[in-house]
């Protein structure tokens, strides 16, 4: 069994690609066959990834697999290798879980659409290429997987091509995405020109000693390439356009999974390939990119009118958190970054699925139009609240644990190195977290609470088949939130050690002697002092205070039973003073007719509207947070122009950032 385990990575990828192939073949006939095939291939990939946990996480083995059995000849890697260490398995797990949830969700969510065979073929190709990128041990293989990922994501974004703006978003994503993948290609070519190999392990070994200017330029190209895939600062308008128009299950994939591949690429590049994370310049570069994209995207998200576009900007600002944490360079920083990446996929997936549910039922996503849906869709409202609470980092949920670790890592870094830059980053992170909370309060008020728009009078709750994946994610949100300590030790520590311990990475593929020959640094296991957030004592404390509070309120309740709303229409006399039972004189009778009292419901339970008949007046969408917007109006108007929506501008921003990074890398690296 143990040697068979080394075939699991390729089997997982093949199960997804084969699933895509078979669905396009057999799926045309009827839906059930197609759904079964899709379900089996997703489940197979998930099971194999789970099976890999024991050897890789617990025993710490690094699984190498040479395609076509082309083992290295005379210490030179010829064939294409797959390499699974704890870091890539960590991301592999996130990806397979997200794929599984998104797939089961889209069975019912996409039922209204047509030509679903193409949808599922593209969907399985996308998940296969994403898994392939994370598990591959060969740089050019990563480039090929990035290209497949981009093409399938673009095709899926434009899947509902009659949807307003879908084609435009897809085109922008494709052109600037192609720009990013070409820079990855150029980086690969430059690395090959210097080291004459493409295998990641061998590159790591060779790069430890001879880093010249060309590898520096290759670093810049690769960093910008992976940055495009992670939608970092200059590339974030792409994600906003792509998410707003894509179906909800695909926006879950884009925001939860594609951005993680960009993050994985950057971590692999900075921690393993070049191992130059301890150089101050690289730390500044990565953290600066993360902090800027974190802050700009949250302010852009603040006054959006479209629910999914707001979620898209938030997902990039959360990815900015992850990149900032990764750029700190300390082991606590990397641990908090990985933890936040996992949490982000979970709660952002939940939020996108709730957005999909709202769109599926009401057909509109405009924040100014929606309102009061919590009465019609109560369970979706609860799910949304769980997701919103965890993204804004409220204590019992998972966002809190990871965000707080990021602040601590940033602040410790700044106090140890005595450098004010990381202090500014820490304060920006805190402000961003408050603005995230504010924008999710805005979404809660304008979509779920407030008064119901008469147009959505007959919306019903989402079918159960759509709610199951949402509940899976919600439970994951709560579980990883309550036990951050155990999550950290079992999942994060092996991944962090794997990222920093490159000797095991190299020796798994190229053999121990080769690694020794090139003095690959063997960083010790990181002794991150993980502060136990939840000791059992504080749980007892919370429980006791809850019971005391509830009985306090119950005891002091008013003597007669709290009367709920009486039967609609019946004017139940409750005491002599109800105006309903007033003597009606002739003079006031015809006054009544003139007054045309339309509402026969008991006015007692109407919301207070200073006496007026409470007609539909929803306070939501763009007329919230007036004070904040007034102070920032210059900044917001500038940002509004800057995101012009023109393809050329986005390409220009991308090219400028590429040029800037190239310049910096040539000067400092």
């Amino acid at each position, binding site marked *: 069994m143990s040697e068979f385990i080394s075939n699991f990575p390729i089997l997982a990828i093949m199960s997804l690609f084969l699933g895509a192939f078979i669905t396009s073949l057999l799926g045309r006939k009827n839906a059930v066959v197609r759904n079964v095939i899709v379900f089996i291939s997703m489940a197979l990939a998930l099971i194999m990834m789970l099976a890999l946990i024991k050897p890789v996480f617990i025993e710490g083995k690094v699984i190498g697999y040479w395609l076509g059995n082309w083992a290295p000849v005379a210490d030179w890697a010829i064939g294409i290798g797959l390499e699974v260490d704890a870091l890539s398995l960590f991301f592999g797990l996130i990806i397979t879980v997200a794929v599984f949830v998104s797939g089961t969700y889209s069975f019912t969510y996409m039922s209204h659409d047509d030509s679903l065979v193409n949808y599922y073929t593209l969907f399985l190709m996308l998940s296969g290429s994403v898994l392939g990128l994370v598990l591959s041990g060969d740089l050019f293989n990563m480039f090929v997987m990035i290209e497949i990922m981009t093409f399938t994501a673009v095709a899926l974004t434009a899947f509902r091509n009659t949807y307003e703006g879908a084609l435009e978003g897809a085109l922008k994503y494709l052109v600037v995405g192609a720009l990013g993948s070409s820079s990855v290609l150029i980086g690969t070519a430059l690395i090959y020109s210097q080291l004459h190999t493409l295998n990641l392990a061998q590159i790591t070994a060779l790069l430890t000693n001879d880093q010249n200017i060309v590898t520096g330029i290759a670093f810049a190209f690769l960093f910008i390439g992976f940055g495009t895939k992670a939608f970092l600062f200059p590339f974030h308008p792409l994600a906003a356009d792509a998410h707003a128009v894509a179906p909800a299950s695909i926006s879950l994939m884009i925001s939860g999974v594609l951005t993680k591949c960009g993050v994985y690429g950057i971590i692999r590049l900075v921690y393993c390939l070049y191992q130059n994370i301890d150089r101050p310049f690289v730390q500044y570069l990565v953290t600066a990119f993360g902090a800027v994209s974190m802050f700009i995207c949250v302010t852009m998200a603040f006054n959006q009118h479209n629910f999914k576009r707001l979620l898209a900007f938030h997902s990039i600002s959360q990815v900015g958190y992850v990149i900032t944490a990764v750029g700190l360079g300390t082991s606590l920083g990397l641990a908090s970054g990985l933890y936040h990446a996992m949490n982000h996929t979970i709660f952002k997936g939940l939020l996108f699925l709730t957005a999909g549910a709202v769109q599926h039922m009401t057909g509109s996503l405009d924040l100014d139009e929606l309102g009061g849906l919590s009465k019609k869709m109560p369970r979706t409202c609860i799910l949304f609240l769980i997701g919103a609470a965890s993204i*804004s980092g409220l204590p019992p949920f998972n966002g809190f644990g990871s965000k707080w670790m990021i602040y601590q890592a940033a602040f410790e870094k700044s*106090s140890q190195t005595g450098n004010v830059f990381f202090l500014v980053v820490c*304060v920006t992170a805190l402000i961003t977290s408050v603005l995230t909370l504010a924008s999710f309060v805005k979404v809660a008020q304008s979509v779920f*609470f407030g008064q119901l728009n008469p147009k959505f009078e007959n919306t019903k709750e989402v079918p159960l088949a759509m709610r199951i994946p949402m509940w899976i994610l919600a439970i994951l949100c709560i579980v990883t939130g309550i036990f951050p300590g155990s999550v950290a030790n079992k999942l994060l520590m092996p991944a962090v050690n794997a990222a920093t311990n490159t000797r095991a990475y190299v020796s798994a593929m190229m053999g121990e002697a080769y690694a020794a020959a090139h003095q690959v640094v063997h960083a010790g296991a990181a002794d991150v002092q993980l502060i136990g957030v939840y000791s059992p*004592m504080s749980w007892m404390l919370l429980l006791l205070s809850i019971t005391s509070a*509830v009985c*306090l309120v119950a005891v002091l309740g008013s003597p007669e039973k709290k009367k709920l709303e009486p039967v609609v229409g019946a004017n139940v006399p409750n005491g002599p003073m109800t105006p309903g039972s007033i003597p009606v004189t002739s003079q006031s009778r015809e006054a009544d007719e003139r007054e045309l009292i339309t509402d026969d419901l008991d006015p007692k339970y109407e919301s207070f509207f200073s006496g007026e008949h409470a007609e539909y007046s929803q306070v*939501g969408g763009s007329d919230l947070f007036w004070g904040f917007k007034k102070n920032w109006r210059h900044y917001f108007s500038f940002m509004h122009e800057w995101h012009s929506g023109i393809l050329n501008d986005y390409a220009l921003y991308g090219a400028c950032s590429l040029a800037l990074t190239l310049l910096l890398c040539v000067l400092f690296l």
Partner: protein
Amino acid sequence: MTNVLLYAVHLFLFPGLLFIVVMGLLLAGIDRKLVARMQNRVGASILQPWYDFLKCCGKETIIPRHARKGLFLGAPVACFVILISAALFIPVFGGLSMSFEGDVVVILYLLTAAGVAIIVGSAASGSPFAGVGLSREMVAMISYELPFVLVLLAVGALCGQDSAYGVTFSMDEIVRWQTENGSSLLHPAMIPAAIAMLFVIPCEIGMHPFDIAEAETEISEGTLTEYSGAPLGVFKLCHCVKMYVMTALFCALFLGGLSTGILLVDALLEVVFCIIVTFLCMTVPHAICARFKVEQVFKFYWTFVSALALISLLLVWIMR
């Protein structure tokens, strides 16, 4: 068994539920009395908040038609629970608290969660006044969060100088450091941070000059428009408890060094200092100036008060 009993007493009696609620009501009563005296009028009795709370519990609870019953009734209880658990993390003059390593950030986030509970409660009530009220409450929260965080970082940096990580996020560590090298108010670098904290407290609680969320004259009780009866009473109780929580936090952060070790004397000291801080930061502004406009609150906190907090943070940085 004894430590569970001691723990239950600790939770319910001294620094626990009873003490916090009594202190909160006392502080609110004293504050109203002092404001009245400053306006040269007699003013209500010190027990007035207690009477208000009892009267509210005696009234009928009306749940409006548009409201979402579960959240509408649950929000006040959640807010009360969160505030009590936040208060329990604050050491009462050097001891007797459930403190562990990272609880400064837990307190910060529990206070944010209390604000979110109020917001969810008013959103669930479905009234347009509550909609405007919750957006103002959120703007107030954004505006006071920045200086509040900077003050916590400054105190953490000061009291964490000699710790391994150069910073501390634990209340016990802060109080212990202050008992050794004198409370942080005496350090010259911390004066601006103390002033900034004094400004943050009224906005966090929603006291008069900064109560843009419950502006009676403008948006008829804002967030609490639809509340009546026991939930309203619990929200008013939360308002008073928040006064105690913030003033106790101020005492722990800046006057930590004055604890004498004897339990009773410590409690009295805590009461006296809380009253002084309440007078300084809530009564005086309440009596002096009128209610701020929404964007004035935001501009005031993000420019003037944050600058104060930043100065002290940089001073601590340089003096290290």
